[in-house]
């Protein structure tokens, strides 16, 4: 069942990434996490490799964690941040970076599908670090890795996503990835912030966070888009927080060992209450650490020009054969 592993050049999204490849990345991240925990954080995997980050729009953690991941693995890393690309076409910019010898281009862009458009035009591997509202595959891999580390499995877990599902690329990537790995996915959020057709994929649409988190093993809170109020999608943040935010009260309906996740930046008191963020079930800080490990794994596997390094250990612990 190893599909396309040797030829996959780009990481565009979890929708198109086979379950087997997701498992391989998770497996590699375990090794990387070990490297991270060492007193001397240095590995040779990216020696002589060039990584360029091109971020159109804001980012703090994603940008820094990719940068650190590349440096921990002895790669050359450069970062370009631009506010907007209306002056120059993005494909011209990326093509130029490609011609400068980049092996990996990490791209964040405000429009869905931009990495998909660019990937066939360049030799470098394109890593999607967020394309509009479409996908943010590396963050979802972080989330799935964190769940896997905490629960030891993905299959059969009840995972509840609450909040703004429509505008959140992390939510989309998580849904595609979790469904592939056999989790039961439920979503709850204002009807104005739920995308169409999810139920046909087997996602359970819940009326309230309480319904979604009942018997949940995992709760992921999704950040409310900052202009949702101005665009008339929700009345105000107070009501949103009350009806769709996560509070300690909701957690009592979940399984006792539920883990609560947020990809940051969190809107304190809107997405979830301060008590939940700091509470015993929260694994938000661990997600941040895992963020670097996953990015190291992803860079390692996609840094070889023209191909994914493939599956380091097909029989490894994360690599149960698909049904």
């Amino acid at each position, binding site marked *: 069942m190893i599909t396309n592993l040797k030829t996959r050049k780009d990481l565009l999204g979890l929708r198109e990434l086979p379950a087997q490849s997701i498992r391989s990345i998770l497996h590699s991240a375990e090794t990387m996490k070990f490297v991270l925990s060492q007193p001397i954080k240095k590995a040779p995997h990216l020696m002589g490799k060039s990584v360029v980050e091109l971020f159109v729009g804001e980012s703090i953690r994603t940008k820094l964690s990719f940068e650190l991941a590349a440096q921990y693995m002895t790669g050359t890393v450069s970062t370009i941040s631009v506010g907007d690309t209306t002056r120059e076409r993005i494909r011209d910019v990326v093509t130029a970076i490609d011609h400068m010898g980049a092996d990996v281009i990490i791209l964040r862009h405000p429009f*869905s*599908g931009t990495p998909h*458009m660019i990937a066939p035009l360049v030799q470098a591997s394109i890593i999607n670090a967020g394309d509009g*509202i479409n*996908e943010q595959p590396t963050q979802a891999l972080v989330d799935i890795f964190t769940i896997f580390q905490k629960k030891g499995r993905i299959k059969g877990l009840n995972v509840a996503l609450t909040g703004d599902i429509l505008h959140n*690329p992390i939510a989309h990537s998580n849904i595609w990835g979790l469904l592939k790995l056999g989790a039961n996915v439920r979503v709850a959020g204002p009807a104005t912030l739920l995308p169409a057709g999810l139920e046909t*994929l087997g996602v359970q649409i819940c009326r309230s966070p309480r319904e979604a988190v009942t018997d949940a093993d995992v709760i992921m809170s999704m950040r409310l888009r900052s202009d949702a109020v101005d*665009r008339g999608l929700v009345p105000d943040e107070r009501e949103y927080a009350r009806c769709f935010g996560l509070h300690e009260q909701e957690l009592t309906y979940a399984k006792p060992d539920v883990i609560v996740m947020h990809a940051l930046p969190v809107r304190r008191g809107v997405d979830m209450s301060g008590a939940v963020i700091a509470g015993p079930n929260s694994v938000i800080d661990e997600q941040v650490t895992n963020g670097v490990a996953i990015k190291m794994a992803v860079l390692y596997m996609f840094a070889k020009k023209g191909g994914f390094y493939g599956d380091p250990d097909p029989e490894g612990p994360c690599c149960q054969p698909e049904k």
Partner: protein
Amino acid sequence: MILIRKGRVVSPRNKLSGVMDVLIDGEAIVKLAPELPQYYEDENVRIIEATGCIVTPGLIDIHCHLCEPGFESREDIASGTRAAVRGGFTSIACMPDTQPKTCSAPSVTYILDRARRVGAAHVFPVGTITRYGQGEQLAPIAEMKMAGAVAVSDEAEPTADGGVLRNALKYANSFKMPVLTNCLDRSIAATGVMNEGLVSTLHGLMPIPKSAEQSVVARNVILSLETGCPVHLSHISTEGSVEIVRWGKKMGARVTADTCPQYFSLTEEAVTGYNTMAKLDPPLRAQADVDAVVEGLRDGTIDIISTDHMPCTEDSKIAEFARAAYGMSSLETALAASLTYLYHTGKLSMGDLIYKMTAAPADLLQLGRSELREGARADITIFDPNATWKVRREAFESKGKNTPYEGMELQGEVISTIVSGSIRVLDRMVMM
């Protein structure tokens, strides 16, 4: 003189169907009979062999974008009319979304003048409904009609204000000026870029709900019912729209509607992989909508097949999906796509199909009878209904190479097009 020999004449208006010879002298058809052997050896007669082909009145498109003046990098009147005749259209009505907008008598005159000089087909300008197309006050509808405009349309910017449109319908009706309405509520469509559904969700693209079209279709039908004035609904694409128009007609509203081949041949699946060539306005819909549009064409709810030919520059299509331009270059594929998806599938008879591309549009724009008979103007389209060909965008006459049909096989190919007795396309080659 030109003799079209042994083609199957299909002229639905006067119920003419059968293998006939057609003799053209000057701008008119002078003889139409099963056989005209006396001209076969005549040196002064140019013979077009049409055995196995269909000979019909020249096709009429009520809805295309020629982009001149203002956007000549996309299309101009010369290239647009060449594309028209290549696709079998002898008369085309061009939308007012030019720069400046076609919103006054001089701008109408300009287009007519350019078309007379460089046009390969008859061009009929369509003006704006409102002043400068801004949706607030009425445009000089009567003056534009006197200058030669055949209709008014809010194609560039849908009239959001129902009161303005209501007045426009009444005012235009007093001058017998057809009003073509672009049914889109921008407040509902918001930032959407494709049809709402699983495909939009899977691609993370902001959705356009069907209600953005349907609510305006409903409003316009009701305005027509109340005022008794005719209204035409352009390029309807959803199951709901078809149902509303069907209801309106049953209630006696003077509504007419058109759709385009893309809406009965393709679904939103064509967008898969962020294919900007399939980014259209209105967006491609779901299979149920395609089926409903076909049913609407069958039962007469949808009167006309138009092209909504919208050429785009290469650059504007090779872009991020949300930033890419809307539209497809469709004059050269409309007939073939209609034949492939309506006639060859047995959904529509040849007569009904041709009626919706000749007589029905002629009625809407008051362009005459659009039929083949002795004495009629020699606007004639000859096509081989069975020839299959592969769509290759670089072969388009249009400047717009944007087509979601690229590489697809279509069945039905235009062989020759004659405009006012002049051969514009001969054996698949444009002669201008």
